């Protein structure tokens, strides 16, 4: 893979600066970071940015997108190239605004990126995770908004310091004012972090029977998940537990599918599990194509017996 001479990076969120700088260092010889505060400038140098540009503005009512014209001006003055940003809501909208200002090709949700003859090839998820699209950016300026985990976080080296180049804020007639900011309460359920998941599907015939799966969860110290019919059709479980297309994409160590037929629309959210275990009465169910261990049998017989055996 060839390297670009320069890669630009920007992150609206401190915690994701490491990952875009890491990506920049992998794809380019020189990493130029654009930041909005002195603190962030220090961080950028410590993570290995070669040059830092600080846009000075003291108006705290500004939203990040109001900096689009300022950022575009820096890039235009210094030279167009690839711009990397993390996949946050703000960066996605900023990226689209910049793509018009800079006449740049843009790809979002990028999970893999490589450079060939100065063209930027980006893979990204489409159809809610069912497939990947491959897009090639051919314009002089290009923007890739990357999915988390695409690049390894690099370690900070506090001995690396530098002086940021200060640039003026460019007034934006399309400014949006932020009049209040509150932190958000997250949902208590996060299947993305679960080491083990027990998931149920249509094979469970009554809502009360979910307790059978909950028992197994206790024994295995697993989180409970489900397929679409259980969350969307029956509404027996909350949306945060629904695994599959346009919802949870889980990568647990162990995934136990109970009474789940294994349609692709569900499996896109489970197929990256390290080990898949299936309990299903239909031996032709597609779930067995994905399974490492499976049993063809009635879940109402198998499930309580398995829970009991593992408990002992």
């Amino acid at each position: 893979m060839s390297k670009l001479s320069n890669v630009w990076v920007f992150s609206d969120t401190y915690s994701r600066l490491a990952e875009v700088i890491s990506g920049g260092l992998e794809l380019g010889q020189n990493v130029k970071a654009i930041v909005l505060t002195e603190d962030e400038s220090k961080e950028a140098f410590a993570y290995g940015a070669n040059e830092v540009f600080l846009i000075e503005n003291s108006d705290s009512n500004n939203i990040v997108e109001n900096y689009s014209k300022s950022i575009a001006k820096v890039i235009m003055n210094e030279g167009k190239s690839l711009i990397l940003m993390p996949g946050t809501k703000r960066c996605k909208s900023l990226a689209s605004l910049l793509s018009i200002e800079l006449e740049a090709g843009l790809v979002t949700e990028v999970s893999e990126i490589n450079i060939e003859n100065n063209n930027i090839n980006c893979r990204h998820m489409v159809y809610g995770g069912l497939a990947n699209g491959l897009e090639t950016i051919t314009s002089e300026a290009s923007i890739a908004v990357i999915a988390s985990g695409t690049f390894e976080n690099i370690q900070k080296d506090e001995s690396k310091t530098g002086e940021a180049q200060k640039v003026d804020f460019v007034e934006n007639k399309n400014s949006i004012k932020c009049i209040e900011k509150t932190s958000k309460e997250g949902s208590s359920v996060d299947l993305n972090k679960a080491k083990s998941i027990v998931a149920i599907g249509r094979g469970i015939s009554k809502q009360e029977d979910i307790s059978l799966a909950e028992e197994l969860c206790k024994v295995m110290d697993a989180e409970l998940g489900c397929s679409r019919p259980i969350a969307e059709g029956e509404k027996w479980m909350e949306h945060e537990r629904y695994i599959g297309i346009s919802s949870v994409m889980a990568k647990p160590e162990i995934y136990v599918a109970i009474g789940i037929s294994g349609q692709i629309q569900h499996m896109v959210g489970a197929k990256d599990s390290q080990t898949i275990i299936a309990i299903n009465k239909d031996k032709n169910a597609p779930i067995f194509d994905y399974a490492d261990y499976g049993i063809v049998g009635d879940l109402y017989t198998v499930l309580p017996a398995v829970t009991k055996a593992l408990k002992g």
Partner: protein
Amino acid sequence: MKILVGCKLVPEDQDIVVQNDGTLDTSKAAPKISQFDLNAIQTAVDIKKENANATITALSVGGKKLENVKVRKDMLSRGLDELVVVTNEKYENILPHQTSKILSEVAKEQGFDLIICGDGSGDLYAQQTGIKLGALLDVPTVNGISEIVSIDENKIIAKRALENEVEVLEVPLPAVICVSADINEPSIPGMKAILAAGKKPVNVKEVVVEDSALVDLVEIRAPKKKERAHIIIEGDSEDQIAEFVNNLRKII
């Protein structure tokens, strides 16, 4: 108040078939309104409830599927006053930088106070079209809107749910806002609305934009399946369950 809504048709994802070579067969997947765009339409309908003088025009760009009378009626039955469609065979797999250009041409011609789009589409989910549209029209533009707090002739006050915080924003009009899926629960059209939809105007427009070579979509393909052990026991007798449990003990 003139409201425009961006509306895309996408194939029903539950009916997309992944073929052996990883390519997708969408021929059996009926076209439907992209989920986020239903939220966008509902947002416009809710604004109209409070503002009797508001009108809602949906704009849709696409290929052959958009010629389908049934899906046009489906769009119109959801509270629109009018539908403007731009169809062309070339627009079958159109990318955001082109869609936004076409939409901006139509929006300029129609005039608007507010344009509402979904945050992204159910197929490519690039999450670019609405924002690019706003940038092309040179008006205030923002994504992730999760609640409309108030709206008058000059501005919208709206909440925007980000990863870890919620912003309350003052957006001067005219503007483009992109809404998230949790802004509302789109209502299902009743019989009366479905019947009335047939009488509502559909305006077909020709808009040709030059092919701009910023980005090429090279392919869409499902990733390869991981190799699995496939140790499957056929039957649920006591012995068979015991054997299954023994297999599980190796990993649990």
